């Protein structure tokens, strides 16, 4: 982790200790899910899509830890395989907006001018739409599906990253080390990517982790509504939608994917919060 601050502050040693613990536990949860997702085919006792009508709606027991769903698929195996889809969402839903937004923010903050005022107007405009509604409408226009969900996120999400990076760049644009770099005759490219980008990176990463909670939950909501991942793909939102029709007879079908969503969400949320605090502490130090 390049984010870890090397500066030891005397003022508040105790919260710092606790903060590192928060990050460690959150990282362990997220890391655990990543491992489970990677090794899902090995760990999962059943094929996630193997239909077994004879054992449909079976309650959790020693063979099927989380029970089986309405067509007899093993819920435990489906939750494990679902981790692949839901973690993919965090990556494919966050990285494109992050990269596009960071680039735009860097140039806009450094050069200013027309591009910059245009960016701010675009920001005003996207802020006018409720985020969820805009993504929903774009997915509706393009057609339901995971890929279109990612496209919609890229179209909408980059603006926030651009604004974040722009603010970071404008904060240090006039500072002495940037002036020094410019006086020494470094090209704009070097100043932008060697000096300004690393400076903004900590905030971007902290924000991206928090953002991935929103993206993962939005993705699960879309799967639940039938607009994201499509059945029979094992995705937590899709599984919850499947199970909601059978909740009176079989509580386990939608309970376990929900708990999985919460645990991954908690891990990511606290990781993002911890990194954000670390970043703020670093800046004030």
């Amino acid at each position, binding site marked *: 982790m390049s984010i870890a601050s090397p500066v030891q502050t005397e003022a508040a040693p105790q919260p710092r200790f606790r903060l590192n613990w928060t990050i460690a536990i959150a990282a362990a949860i997220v890391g655990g899910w990543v491992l489970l997702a990677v090794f899902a085919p090995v760990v999962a006792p059943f094929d996630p899509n193997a239909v077994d009508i004879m054992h449909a709606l079976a309650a959790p027991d020693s063979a099927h830890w989380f029970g089986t769903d309405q067509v007899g698929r093993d819920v435990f195996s489906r939750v494990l395989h679902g981790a692949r889809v839901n973690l993919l969402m965090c990556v494919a839903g966050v990285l494109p907006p992050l990269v596009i937004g960071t680039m735009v923010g860097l140039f806009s903050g450094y050069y200013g001018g027309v591009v910059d005022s245009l960016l701010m107007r675009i920001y005003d405009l996207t802020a*006018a*739409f409720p985020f*969820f509604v805009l993504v929903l409408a774009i997915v509706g*226009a393009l057609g339901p599906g995971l890929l279109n969900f990612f496209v919609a996120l890229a179209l909408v999400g980059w603006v926030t990253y651009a604004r974040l990076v722009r603010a970071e760049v404008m904060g240090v644009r006039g500072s002495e080390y940037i002036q020094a770099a410019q006086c020494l005759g470094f090209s704009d490219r070097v100043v932008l990517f060697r000096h300004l980008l690393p400076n903004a990176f900590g905030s971007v990463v902290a924000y991206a982790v928090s953002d991935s909670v929103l993206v993962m939950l939005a993705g699960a909501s879309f799967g639940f509504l039938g607009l994201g991942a499509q059945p029979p793909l094992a995705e937590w939102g899709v599984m*919850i939608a499947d199970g909601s029709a059978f909740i009176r007879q079989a509580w386990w079908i939608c309970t376990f994917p929900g708990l999985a969503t919460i645990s991954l969400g908690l891990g990511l949320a606290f990781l993002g919060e911890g990194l954000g605090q670390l970043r703020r502490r670093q800046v004030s130090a």
Partner: protein
Amino acid sequence: MQLVAKRTLQLVFVLVGICVITFLLVHMVPGDPARIIAGDRANAETIEAIRKSFGLNQPLWRQFLTYAGNLLQGDIGESMRYKRPVATLIGQFVWPTLFLTGYVVCLAVPPSVALAIASARKPGGVADQIIRFIGIAGMAIPVFWLGIMMSRFFGVALGWFPVSGYGKTFIQHLHHLFLPALSTAIWMVPVLVQSLRAALIEKAGADFVVAARAQGASEREIFWRTILPNAVLPTLNLFGVIIAFLIGGTIVVEAVYAVPGLGSLMINALLARDYHVVQGLTLMFAVTTVAVTFVVDLLSALIDPRVRL
């Protein structure tokens, strides 16, 4: 006055932008729009006739001008599924959503204010730590899942509340919408608490607080008479963001509890590819958000003499 003029200019720009985006939304639909309107079995002549009658053979900017002109006359398109103007549909479905929104605000604001005050009175204290922990944890709960679980527990198992619909009388509305409102509120409170807490703590470090302390005011007095009133304004400014959040949240919750509101209308329109309804609703949600932000800005200018300068 200058501020009002500036904000109004900005408002006009944003409104035009909203029109452009909602217009482009329907044009993002892959495939030939005339064919989509005509349906799969239409022959070439019908498609051509539709293309003409909807003006789809005109250049894009002409189509946009027609769209914008219609909007100015209050015509936001027609539903292909219901064969009715979108505006009429919205008028029909808006009441449950408005009721739900008001209900959520009533349920969410009092505990948020209480928690934020408890949290900000002693930042870093035990209460603050716990509230912050719950706040972060609350954001990780999928609201649709919470809705299903609550309807299963309080609705089916205990039979306390109906699990779907809206009811007929005011009391029935309150009863039917309790679980949907509670699910949304649970998700809403952490966001509110965080913003209010941040505002309170920021004001606690302001110069006028130091001044009040120097004058010998008690800590109690400082908190209730100096910090709290000053924290109201920044919170008011968040209202636009909160409305946007609420709209997104109620869409999913309405779908879970089958509340016949705008959210259900939106989801059904999306699944049925009723594009003009989606377009009209997106437009309406955006305009609502912008209008709320605008009014709040003007209000805070009215309350706060400093903004007027």
